[in-house]
């Protein structure tokens, strides 16, 4: 476990694989979105408006996945005290926030023509909005607390407590009356979406997943590099002080 979590080894491996992940992400994203926009058949009720599904569902799914990732990484960080775990959680937060914002925005633009409203305070929409604020809160902790060890601990607690919201989002449509419809893909009895529409959707979801892997690896690399930069800066300052001290004595 600790061997894999060695920052230098992590940097080397992730530098090797990110270009490939990036290319795969770009290709699948283009294929998925093009298929969704132009090839997939129209829905029998919603016509072309349903094409928003090919961005809305992946963004919503990833908004929850990302938070789950942060919560697990935070748990590992708090129990095993490995900095790489805290850095992974921290790196994922802005990505999750972007996915959440996109889920809310695309959902709103889908709701207007179909439901008749941009927004309603039902359990699904409200809990997704809470998720956005959780991401903001998590990122604010890292910005506000100067002591890195303390920041990591507080942020980890925010991530783990906030994770309670994830099952609430997922099951809100089953537990309460909502305007939002129940699940179409991940439900008992198989997906209730025609294969001609399901395939581009699955490709799009895969592309969003790969996007997350690519970008989170870049961001973790950045955080590791910054830690090393701070270390070097300190050594340079110490070196100068030593030289000055010697000069003074001489």
């Amino acid at each position, binding site marked *: 476990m600790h061997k894999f979590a060695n920052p230098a080894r992590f940097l080397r491996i992730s530098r090797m694989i990110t270009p490939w992940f990036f290319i795969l992400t770009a290709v699948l994203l283009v294929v998925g979105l093009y298929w969704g926009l132009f090839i997939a*058949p*129209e*829905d*029998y*009720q*919603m016509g072309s*408006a*349903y094409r928003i*599904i090919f961005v809305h569902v992946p963004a919503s799914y990833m908004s929850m996945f990302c938070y789950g990732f942060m919560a697990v990484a935070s*748990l590992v960080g*708090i*129990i*095993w005290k490995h900095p790489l775990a805290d850095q992974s959680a921290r790196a994922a937060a802005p990505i999750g926030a972007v996915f959440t914002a996109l889920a809310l925005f695309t959902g709103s633009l889908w709701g207007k*023509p*179909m*439901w*008749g*409203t941009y927004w*309603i*305070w*039902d*359990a699904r929409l409200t809990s997704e909005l809470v998720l956005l604020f959780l991401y903001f809160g998590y990122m604010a902790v890292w910005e506000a607390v100067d002591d890195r060890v303390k920041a990591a601990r507080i942020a980890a607690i925010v991530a*783990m*407590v906030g994770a*309670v919201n994830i099952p*609430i989002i997922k099951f809100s449509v089953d*537990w*309460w*009356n*909502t*305007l939002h*419809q*129940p*699940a*179409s893909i991940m*439900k008992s009895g198989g997906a*209730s*979406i*025609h294969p*001609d*529409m399901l395939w581009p959707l699955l490709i799009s979801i895969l592309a969003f997943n790969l996007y997350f892997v690519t970008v989170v690896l870049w961001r973790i690399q950045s955080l590791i590099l910054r830690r090393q930069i701070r270390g070097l800066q300190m050594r340079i300052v110490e070196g100068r002080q030593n030289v000055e001290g010697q000069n003074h004595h001489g």
Partner: protein
Amino acid sequence: MASNVNTRASKRKKKRLYLVLTSMSIVVLAVGLVLTALEDSISLFLDPSELVERNIPEGQHIRLGGLVVEDSFKKDQDGLTYYFDVTDGAETVSVTYKGSLPDLFREGQGVVLEGETSNSGLFHATEVLAKHDENYMPKEVMDSLKKRGVYREVEEESI
């Protein structure tokens, strides 16, 4: 010596793990209790059965949700006022509404209405929102399902 340090470290790890698991269980329990207590206010709407059961007083602003009954939709002569029935399978409520309807509004589909009951038993809606179900399929597939008479059965089952 080294193994001594190791066991002490792993004991601390175990302690932290139990601490996190315990606090998380408490958080989950607390949130669960709050959500159960607030169940009524979290649910977006009442269905017709609940509306009848609870004897909602006239003029109280509520949301009502259900399926629009087939062949119940009528337009007034002014072309702006609509009449239709909303059902949950057990109870049915008649609704009147003046305003514009969302694109997805149709008979057999779910709706969520905002408004109040009147003394005549008619529900005066001030806002109509269409609810979408979780089914997505191409038009041709739907047509052939209807032709084979499969769709009807599915629909009746789901009510």
